[in-house]
């Protein structure tokens, strides 16, 4: 296992999409290669940042305009 091969498997590794043997081989590489370890670790952290539910709140004015648009649609829809 070299760095290039390890990096090419990073997505499959993070997704748990590797057979046990390849996973173990990568793990051994990560234990001794600080560069690859940092890349794997910060890629995982990147995903975690985007998944943070506290970010990207719906602004109040955007929400009000959505509900106003829906009310207008409701009023103009024959029932």
């Amino acid at each position: 296992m070299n760095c290039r091969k390890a990096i090419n498997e990073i997505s499959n590794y993070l997704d748990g999409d590797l057979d046990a043997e390849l996973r173990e081989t990568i793990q051994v590489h990560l234990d001794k290669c600080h560069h690859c370890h940092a890349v794997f670790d910060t890629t995982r952290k990147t995903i975690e940042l985007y998944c943070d539910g506290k970010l990207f709140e719906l602004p109040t004015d955007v929400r009000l305009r959505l509900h106003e648009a829906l009310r207008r649609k409701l009023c103009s829809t024959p029932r």
Partner: protein
Amino acid sequence: MSESPEATLPKDESVLVAEAKAGNYAAFDELVNRYEKKIYRLGLHITGNQEDAEDVLQEAFLKAFQHLPDFREDSRFYTWIVRIAVNEGLMKLRKRRSSKEVALDDPEDDEGEVMPREFADWNPNPEQQLARAELESILMKAVAGLPPTFRTVFYLRDVEGLSTEETAEMLNLSVGAVKARLFRARLRLREDLSRIFKRG
């Protein structure tokens, strides 16, 4: 003082859909309240800007309201509204492409090897070091720098949590194309964020 469980438990989505189909607007409103934030986030990540994200949000729920009688309930309502919103977002991007503002999927982005250049560890907990608005701005800038289908795949797989197969089906891509784009999207986002968050 305790309330009965019936009074506090949120209604099941399928019950709300049935009531909304029967003309109960309050039930539809409850569905909107439940998912509006996630659909706005989806719009932000696919279009890369707040104005278009608001359009995606409005169009998705207006279309859902209009076509609710046709919703056959062979999937969850949430899956259905995500699909509508993804289509709205991609339509926005196509319009931008036709106005030559952005190129949708530069073929060069699909080729060549992706190797990291930044190998440093990050400062611990960057999300705690920055004001929320600043962090959001950094994350959105990085996403907006990706080709549109990369960021759509990234959002659906990593933020929305769809499977590779579900993402492929929703975007009309092969499973291999989804995996390749996700790989590139993750590494490119990491590279961009590393320049800001690296220890040192």
